[in-house]
């Protein structure tokens, strides 16, 4: 049962399995365990980013192509749901229609970009996606009467997801609000999408992607049309990113360029994939969890450290809470050099070494 759910791709390390289990249990019980809004927001953000990072890993880790347009698809999903709820009223049907339109648009755009640039080289694709994504971000900010511009749009979600809504009361736990329902919607969707991604990479299709990553000439020589495979992988990853964006919009009840389209989020995704471990879906879980926690709590730690070192001018500004990206950037460079398979690879490697001994 568990094997089938995980598509026969087990964590392969006791430590990793224990950490994953802990993360999943904590996420599953988050609204019941932690009362505060910040804790639940963090948990929901982790769920959304797990999907987003897993879909990016499908591209970067499994197919070996670097895209800088992943936030664009994330944004398309967010804007699709958000603008539909804003324009057509807070009903489930408008959210569904918006998401379907976003899926259609996102996949079509991914197909177009793929056909245009995946024929040539990895580097070409990276540059073109960067250009297209930045143009998209600017367009989203420019057409402000439609998208809300830089300010974005706040909108109302379907009634069952609003904080004021009550599903009833449970013994021991208390009233179940719409926020809890919304959280579980995000959590369950994220779980399903993650398992689907795991299924994709462990299917024969996923094997071909890995073959292309390792050596595209050989894959081509074996008779696989590599361009088609790459393009399909690109579309799948884009569709998943659109869904993640839709979930995010439903949770935040707000959509704007800074939370979805900015290059900073693209950098975050890259960091999560690389630190968690490229080419291991579980890396997405570890990377996203670690990163979101760091983003929320490391900054506080750094603020304390900066205060403690106030007397030393340069050290204090290096430890300023806004500079947390500096340290993650250094961690990123080091992990690309020294552990290209990330934390998951490290944990699996420790087990492999123990087996050999």
């Amino acid at each position, binding site marked *: 049962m568990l094997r089938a759910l995980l598509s026969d791709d087990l964590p392969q390390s006791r430590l990793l399995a224990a950490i994953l289990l802990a993360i999943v249990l904590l996420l599953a019980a988050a609204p019941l365990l932690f009362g505060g809004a910040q804790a639940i927001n963090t948990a929901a953000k982790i769920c959304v980013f797990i999907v987003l990072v897993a879909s990016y890993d499908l591209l970067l880790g499994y197919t*070996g192509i*670097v895209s800088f347009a992943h936030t664009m698809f994330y944004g398309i999903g967010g804007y699709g749901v958000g603008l539909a709820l804003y324009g057509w009223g807070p009903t489930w049907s408008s959210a569904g229609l918006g998401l379907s339109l976003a899926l259609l648009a996102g996949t079509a755009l991914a197909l177009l970009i793929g056909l*245009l640039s995946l024929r040539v080289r990895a580097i070409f694709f990276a540059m073109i996606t960067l250009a*297209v994504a*930045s143009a998209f971000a600017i367009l989203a900010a420019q057409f402000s009467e439609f998208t809300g511009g830089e300010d974005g749009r706040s909108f109302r979600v379907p009634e069952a997801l609003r904080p004021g809504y009550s599903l009833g009361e449970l013994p021991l736990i208390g009233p179940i609000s719409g926020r809890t329902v919304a959280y579980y919607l995000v959590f369950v969707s994220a779980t399903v999408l993650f398992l689907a991604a795991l299924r994709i990479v462990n299917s024969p299709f996923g094997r071909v992607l890995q073959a292309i990553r390792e050596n595209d000439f050989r894959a081509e020589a074996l008779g696989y049309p590599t361009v088609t495979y790459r393009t399909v992988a690109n579309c799948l990853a884009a569709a998943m990113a659109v869904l993640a964006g839709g979930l995010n919009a439903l949770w935040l009840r707000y959509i704007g360029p800074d939370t979805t389209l900015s290059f900073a989020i693209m950098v975050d995704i890259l960091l999560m994939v690389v630190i968690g471990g490229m080419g291991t879906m579980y890396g997405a879980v570890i990377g996203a969890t670690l990163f979101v926690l760091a983003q929320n709590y490391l900054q506080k730690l750094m603020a304390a450290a900066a205060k403690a070192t106030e007397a030393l001018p340069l050290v204090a500004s*290096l430890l300023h809470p806004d500079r947390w990206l500096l340290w993650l*950037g250094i961690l990123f*460079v080091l992990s*690309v050099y020294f552990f290209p398979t990330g934390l998951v690879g490290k944990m699996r490697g420790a087990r492999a070494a123990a087996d050999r001994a």
Partner: protein
Amino acid sequence: MTPARHPTATPALPVAPAASDAPIGAARLDILPLLLLPGLAIAALAIMLWQGVPVSTWITLTIAALAMGMMIFVIASGLTLVFGLMDVLNFGHGAFIALGAYLAMTTLIPLAGWVEAPSLALNLLALALAVLVAMLGTGALGWLFERVIIMPVYGQHLKQILITTGGLIVAEQLIHVIWGGDQKPMPLPSALRGAVIVGDVAVEKFRLLAVAIGLVIFLGMLLLLNRSKLGLLIRAGVENREMVEALGYRIRRLFALVFVAGSALAGLGGTLWALYRETLTAGIGNELIVLVFIVIIIGGLGSVGGCFLGALLVAQVANYTSYLAPKVALASNILLMVAILMWRPQGLYPVAKR
């Protein structure tokens, strides 16, 4: 201008004549892409006349495009050469742009007296000093970047993209640490402010300077590449790296040199751009790097001539559309790129081996 120019060699032994009419190794000037420049300008003129815009506006826009194109070319040329020579695409190029601009700004602060002086010579001297500091600083950082960041990942594209992006993040954050994140003023020297007015046409003085500097760099680069031993080696390296290595030249050293020069040019370009904008934020690199990528893709990765042409095309499109349809200005450059890639999937002047 053509990338397909081989070092001409006369065969010592009689050989069978080549199937094509062109003599072996002679440069074939590919004229079609060059026609795009006047074509675009005339199309823009036609649209503007049709909309009742005076011709003087068109001339101002065209000169602005020329200046912007030159600045982008200065930045992009180093990137495209580095790619051509060593197959390394530096996603961290934006960091050099920003660092150059910040160094120049810092140099100009103590020189404020010269900058404000009404004498053109003193102004230019201050600018030259600022540019010198910027280029030395970015060149040195380029050397460090090449040694520390790029050297261990030669030949691994995926890692190169990731590592140089990581380097960009770190460098950008360090700029924040050193100079702070707020917007900085970057005043133009007094003699370069304002515009020269010829008839109906107003041309900003700084744009003329930018055009002059860009032309000097372009011509200097052409001379260096086509008329010197060093240029011969660089061009040979672009064509076939292993062969140059086999002939006993240290391609690594050559590459480090080109990388340093490319970084220094990015510093120069960043300085010019900041002066053009008259303000400066740490995001200056990201703002430009997208245009720079579009330029080198359009021109053909590794081709200096293509890069020059691409920069001018992109600047033209950006300037004309920002006047005619300001909301879609950047998207129009993407459209230009798509159109050109449909026509020539490897860019306007594809480099032979790729």
